[in-house]
């Protein structure tokens, strides 16, 4: 019993020690709770909110691009999308596999998703599928509890209702590139698109708008439980262009399969009413990333569908330049309307012989007929008399050799050669023979179809220096009107002489007589041009000059035509260029006639472009 007592005392001591140890440990727990729940509590509260609340950007609606009457050239279509947040998915391959049972995911889709996951931060969502219909979208939503990291949402897809029709003007949008990602967080939104070409690119900042934000409560799987706070963004600004979509459509159809450009311009205010470049491409196919094969096909095509030939194409204007040479001579007083020259079909200069396009020659003719029948010998002769300086000065006055600041990317300056230019280029002085060639618009001289349209407008409107424009309004800003463009230093009488020559082009014996507008109470003046791509050699001339059709496509001449109408009260100018089309009179003139006739019928300038306020009213009425 004594031993039991000892046992008991011993036990009690040890039990007290153990209880004390337990007490210490519990105190440590309480201390830890105090540390987490009181000392560091605010930090953990923040972390809990960071867990719980997620700030989501609301993509702004991209501004629409409209034609002059408010018809949509580029718009947005609501569609349904599925995203994947790699961070929340844990097993991406497995999730994609499960998702693949609901929506069709091709191998390349999977590869694209995996590539993008590897490239960006793992908390950023990656677009898995876009453009889903409602049924599919609903099925994904129903299955979402078993698809961790999968989010669904609505988005806008850029839509170009007329497909290729305005691809060169409006351009297209595409996925944000790494260089673009900068201060604007909206660019990190999945599936966000930015303008990559055309006006979409030039006006990117104004079309884009500003992102709104939505603070939402999410659960651990990223599923949105409720919206806590919302701040609306600002949609992108709408743009109204000066183009008339009906005329644009007609012009593009009329150019057909040719590799060509067509411009219709209001001669008084410079508004471009049609600007067609063929062949074109469908900007819609860039939305979801164009396939490699399609892209390479576009790049390799010798007819250059990606290039806007209206502004970026540069061609020798050929005989359409003869008006400028004539004006330079008239203004300098070196020639007058009665000045006559004899054309035998050939002209010897130095040790070389120059030929007229008409081998048998034109005989004796005056200035007006020289324009009407496009006699090369006449212009060789007067060009030498007038000299390079006066010709290039006149060319510049009429808008050649400089860009107009059109907002379409890729606008070319063209080239008006001069003595200084030649010297700077290769250190060799200007040769008189070059002036001769310049007299018929060949040689180093280059102009874009839109420059030729400007030149023609300035002749037609009585010497007012109109500047072309294609953007009428952006948002609330209306581009300044230029009804009274500055008058140029060219006399009305001299202009009248040149216009008379252009009228006669479509009369009997004129180079475009077959393309004249008959009856109908509408009239047209113009000038044909054929720009040589390849010199005709002596040997060829001696035997037989090959007809256009017999030469390979790349070696055929470009066909050019510039014109205006109506004659009595010029309103519209047209400029047509058909690459490797052959002669201006046979190929370009009929196209120009048809387009001008259509223009006069539609008379687009009769209705000025819609203003922002009208546009709003128009939209409200449509609802």
């Amino acid at each position: 019993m004594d031993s039991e007592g000892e046992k008991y005392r011993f036990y009690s001591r040890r039990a007290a020690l153990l209880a004390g140890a337990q007490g210490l440990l519990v105190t440590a727990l309480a201390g830890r709770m105090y540390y987490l729940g009181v000392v560091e509590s605010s930090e953990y509260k923040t972390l809990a909110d960071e867990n719980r609340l997620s700030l989501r950007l609301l993509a702004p609606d991209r501004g629409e691009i409209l034609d002059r009457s408010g018809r949509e050239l580029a718009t947005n279509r609501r569609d349904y999308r599925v995203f994947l947040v790699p961070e929340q998915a844990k097993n991406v391959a497995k999730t994609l596999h499960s998702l693949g049972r609901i929506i069709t995911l091709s191998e390349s889709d999977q590869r694209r998703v995996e590539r993008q996951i590897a490239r960006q931060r793992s908390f950023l969502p990656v677009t898995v599928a876009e453009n889903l219909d409602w049924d599919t979208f609903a099925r994904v939503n129903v299955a979402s509890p078993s698809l961790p990291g999968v989010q669904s949402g609505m988005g806008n897809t850029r839509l170009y209702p007329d497909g290729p029709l305005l691809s060169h003007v409006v351009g297209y949008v595409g996925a944000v590139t790494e260089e673009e990602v900068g201060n604007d967080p909206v660019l990190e939104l999945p599936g966000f698109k930015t303008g990559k070409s055309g006006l979409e690119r030039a006006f990117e900042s104004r079309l884009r708008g500003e992102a709104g934000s939505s603070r939402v409560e999410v659960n651990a799987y990223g599923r949105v439980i409720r919206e806590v706070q919302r701040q609306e963004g600002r949609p992108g600004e709408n743009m109204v262009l000066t183009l008339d979509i009906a005329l644009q459509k007609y012009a593009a159809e009329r150019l057909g399969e040719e590799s060509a450009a067509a411009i219709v311009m209001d001669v008084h205010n410079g508004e471009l009413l049609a600007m067609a470049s063929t062949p074109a491409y469908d900007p819609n196919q860039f939305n979801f990333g164009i396939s490699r094969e399609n892209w390479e096909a576009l790049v390799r095509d010798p007819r250059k569908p990606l290039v806007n030939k209206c502004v970026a194409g540069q061609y020798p204007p050929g005989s359409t330049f003869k008006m400028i040479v004539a004006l330079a001579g008239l203004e300098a007083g070196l020639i007058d309307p009665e000045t006559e020259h004899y054309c035998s079909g050939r002209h010897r200069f130095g040790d070389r012989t120059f030929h007229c396009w008409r081998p048998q020659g034109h005989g004796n003719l005056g200035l007006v007929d020289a324009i009407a029948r496009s006699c090369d010998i006449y212009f060789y002769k007067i060009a030498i008399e007038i000299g390079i300086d006066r010709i290039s000065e006149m060319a510049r006055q009429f808008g050649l050799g400089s860009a107009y600041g059109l907002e379409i990317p890729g606008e070319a300056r063209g080239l008006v050669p001069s003595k200084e230019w030649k010297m700077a280029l290769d250190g060799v002085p200007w040769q008189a023979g070059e002036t001769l060639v310049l007299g018929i618009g060949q040689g180093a001289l280059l102009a874009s179809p839109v420059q030729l349209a400007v030149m023609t407008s300035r002749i037609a409107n009585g010497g007012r220096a109109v500047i072309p424009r294609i953007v009428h309004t952006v948002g609330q800003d209306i581009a300044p009107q230029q009804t009274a463009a500055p008058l140029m230093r060219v006399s009305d009488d001299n202009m009248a002489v040149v216009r008379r020559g252009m009228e006669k082009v479509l009369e009997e014996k004129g180079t475009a007589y077959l393309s004249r507008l008959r009856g109908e109470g509408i009239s047209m003046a113009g000038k044909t041009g054929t720009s040589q791509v390849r010199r005709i050699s002596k040997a060829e001339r001696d035997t037989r000059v090959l007809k256009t059709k017999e030469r390979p496509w790349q070696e055929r001449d470009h066909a050019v035509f510039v014109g205006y109408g109506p004659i009595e009260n010029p309103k519209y100018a047209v400029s047509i260029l058909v690459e490797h089309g052959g002669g201006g009179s046979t190929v370009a003139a009929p196209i120009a006639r048809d387009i001008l006739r259509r223009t006069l019928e539609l008379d687009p300038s009769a209705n000025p472009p819609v203003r922002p306020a009208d546009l709003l009213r128009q939209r409200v009425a449509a609802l």
Partner: protein
Amino acid sequence: MGISLMFGPRQVRKRPLQKLKKLNWLIILILTGIAFIGFAMLYSVAGGDFSPWASRQMIRFAFALLLMIAIALTDLRIWMALAYPAYFGGLALLIAVELIGATGMGGQRWLDIGIMRIQPSEFMKLAVVLALARYFHGLSIHRAQRLQSLVVPLFLIAIPAALVVRQPDLGTALMVIVGGIAIIFLAGARMWLFVTGFIASLAAIPVVWNQLRDYQQDRVLTFLNPENDPLGAGYQIMQAKIALGSGGVFGKGFMQGTQSHLNFLPEMKTDFIFTVLTEEFGMVGGLVLILLYMILLGYAVLVSISCRSQFGRILASGLSFTLFLYVFINIAMVMGLLPVVGVPLPLVSYGGSAMLTMMVAYGLILSVALHRDITISRTNPFAWE
């Protein structure tokens, strides 16, 4: 030894109804209170619904409560007589698990016997305490202090611990070992043993480390630095700490926990249920629960001190220490003080095994309390001293 001897001397034998009256009902009320905290949390985690968890947990608790009272009313000497059979039976079950057990959660732990799945390792925690209590009851204090007297206890501890480690269930094995060592300490082994043992186990850490499975190593590593891998293995600890810390002093309110309701918390109805409580009821809620546990454990220590038999003393304090380990490891784990080893919070966490262990253990403690005045022979529980 006649029939009357089977139930001990007449003067200490009471009829069950009398015993029922002598039970400490206040302690049983506290026990029920803890269980109700668990029900409330399970109700909250289910988004304000008794199904699927709270209702099932309540049914389990009702059964466990009846079982606990039945155990409490059973004579302590019967438990002493059953100590070794229970121990060896448990050992047999552990070996059975090793051979034919069901696999789950990365280890072999369950034995499927048709109507239910039993977890022998849970049962073993109690059986080891029973066996050790019985063993030390048979020794005088002088013999208990001798070194050679520790050979048997070490085997009693090491064999089940080794089997549990093989499952692998590190948490339970550690609880068996630490609980066993505490009993050896209580029984009177020399103090220097514990000091050298502690130093030796520090030295053994590298060896043990190499024996650990990859996921066990990961748990320890992320415990040491959870922020290193906030989305991988450290995620659980981070989210648990966020829940706890963001609860502040008074919590976000019942059913208002964002970490739990938005599913950021891992395993929130089982191992991490304490963080659900502290997120919604704050530090105050957590401290109240800890206090309730401490009352239960403190009562067990008082029972053990007032007990006449060494078996009862060691049984009560050994079981109390096992329950303490549960509570401490679980809470320390969710607060980032210990690696995540998968120890539930008894009575509060969802699940039957831990609840059963807790209630059986407390039944035994109450049995000690009812029979504290009985003196028991060193060798034969039913013989006169």
